[in-house]
């Protein structure tokens, strides 16, 4: 069942795993942006999470603790962003960029001495008997726990944002912070918590890169995944299930171009490796064309200062 040296079942199974980092980061950013905050520091939080997760996993020998460590590292870094934008009311675009530059610097500083080490492996969750089933096995049962976790988080966030009081408050803060404030909600405190959540998700996504995808530590390991996660949030019109679709589409393109490279395609390697970025641009164009507001939260990127 191969097409030009590419097996579609394995392709789908690998794309699900390769989409996990951007899926987690984009889900986190969705919540942040739904609360009206534009955090452009996703790349920085991911790379810090990648390093933090790697160090914890190597030191403790436990990949699970590694993922928790990655999430914590991302959350801690995001608190710098939260302090600057929510307390000191700094420009969100500039602060987000600074966070990325700072995160890349800190991670390459802290990662010295961790090159060339293998982290403890993240094992397949379900028994081989299930994973070895033809076709459905690799796609549905052959993954590690983080893949299932990322899908579960999509469902949870969809439900929280759509059907719970917490979700309603987050959306109110993001659509009209003045009104939310008038109702007695602490706008900046709610946003701060959302930012920390987004940081934890991005950090965990980064940890998946260094612990499961690559798996080792190299400088700048996330290679723009954070920016792609930001693009996917726009693509998804700020909705969790569409984030999943976007991340899988993107994961699919990445895996496909890697497979084509290995299979020795006629298209030169360089042009294949720029394909994911070009396709992201194309998708952004299609999603934004013809619509003025494209469903962005109304208060996105605006700081709130309670004057009364």
């Amino acid at each position, binding site marked *: 069942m191969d097409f030009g040296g590419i097996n579609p079942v394995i392709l789908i199974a690998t794309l699900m795993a390769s989409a996990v980092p951007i899926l987690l980061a984009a889900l986190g950013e969705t919540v942040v942006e739904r609360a009206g905050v534009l955090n452009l520091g996703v790349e920085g939080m991911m790379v810090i999470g990648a390093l933090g997760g790697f160090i914890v996993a190597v030191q403790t020998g436990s990949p699970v603790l590694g993922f928790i460590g990655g999430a914590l590292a991302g959350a801690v870094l995001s608190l710098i962003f939260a302090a600057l934008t929510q307390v000191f009311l700094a420009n969100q675009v500039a602060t987000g960029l600074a966070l990325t530059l700072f995160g890349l610097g*800190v991670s390459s500083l802290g990662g010295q001495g961790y090159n060339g080490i293998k982290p403890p492996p993240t094992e397949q969750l379900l028994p081989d008997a299930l994973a070895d089933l033809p076709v459905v096995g690799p796609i549905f049962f052959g993954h590690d726990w983080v893949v299932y976790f990322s899908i579960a988080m999509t469902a949870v966030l969809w439900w929280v944002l759509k059907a719970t009081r917490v979700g309603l408050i987050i959306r109110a803060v993001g659509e009209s912070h003045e009104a939310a404030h008038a109702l007695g909600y602490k706008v900046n405190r709610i946003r701060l918590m959302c930012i920390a959540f987004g940081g934890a998700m991005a950090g965990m996504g980064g940890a998946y890169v260094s612990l499961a995808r690559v798996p080792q530590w190299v400088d700048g390991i996330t290679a723009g995944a954070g920016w792609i996660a930001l693009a996917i949030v726009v693509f998804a019109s700020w909705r969790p299930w569409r984030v999943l679709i976007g991340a899988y589409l993107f994961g699919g393109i990445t895996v496909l171009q890697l497979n084509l490279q290995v299979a020795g395609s006629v298209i030169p390697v360089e*042009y294949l*490796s720029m394909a994911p970025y070009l396709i992201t641009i194309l998708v952004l164009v299609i999603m934004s064309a013809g619509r003025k507001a494209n469903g962005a939260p109304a208060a996105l990127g605006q700081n709130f200062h309670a004057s009364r």
Partner: protein
Amino acid sequence: MLRLEKRPTPSKFWLYATPPVAVILTMIAGGILFAAMGKNPFEVIRTIFWDPLFGEFAFYLRGQLLVKAGPLILIAIGLALGFRAGIWNIGAEGQYIMGAIVGAGVGLAVFPTESRWIFPVMVIAGAFGGWVWAMIPAILKTRFNTNEILVSLMLVYVAETILAKASTGFLKNPEGMGFPGSRNFSSYPAAQNSFIYEPLGLHWGGVAALVTAVLAYILLTRHQAGFQIRLAGQAPRAARFHGVSPARLVVLCMGISGALAGLAGMFEVTGPAGQISIDFNTGYGFTAIIVAFLGRLNPLGIVLAGFLMALTYVGGEMASTNLGLPDAAIQVFQGMLLFFLLAVDVLTNYRFRLAVGAH
């Protein structure tokens, strides 16, 4: 309990005082970081900020300052115009790479012709390369309302793959014995960006940076377009009533910043870098964002900020060879500088008040 209170008008004093305060705070925080890494903080700070200017090797290092500051200033001025109007071109690194490839490509295409017209044509080609690369996000923004931040950034990764292809493929030195990288411009005088006055590190890129700073200052303070840029950033609605076309402003600001970044790349690759190679770009396009903010988005402020940032580069290299400070520590240091600047900036528009009683 401290409480923030909005000032009726932004404070003139803090507008100019925040950069120095941020630098001092960064030195303190950076000193703590260096101490935590087991270095003597005073020695490191002195190596970075004092030695390049007045130390033993200052005669050489002072020249390096302008070499590093030139491209930073050139890129940052272009970015600042856009940032003022609320147009976020953050893909200057890509425009810088494309300017270098197109500019150098024109020169290499006519190798080994000797003519004094070659270099000027290369300058124009470099600006054109950066301009074209910036026009992609600009036109997508005006035609399809696509987010220019994400598109310009994605194009950095695309430019990097083109650069890899250029240095291993279409611009590779045919006499390079298979090594990646183009011909070295130091062996091609007609296309080389040579020093005009070496002790100061002044080459054509430095001249372009300083001239651009003056022109941009005049544009912003004396020209209609500059007024429109400032108006669009401060009061978008008022700008629309005034007849400012947002689309034209996007094309103008992105175009200028792209062309300037392309120029910077072209001057760098034909001068200090010497050749197109896979990693000739050193992140100036991203550091220029810090420079633009540090200079208060003001062209003359950017010149000062560019020199300060160049000092951290030159001093950082010194600290890395003499004291074994990792290069990444300087990157962290530069990131901290932007954080402190953004934090202290709150004092320009707000003041802290002691909140008394219930609130």
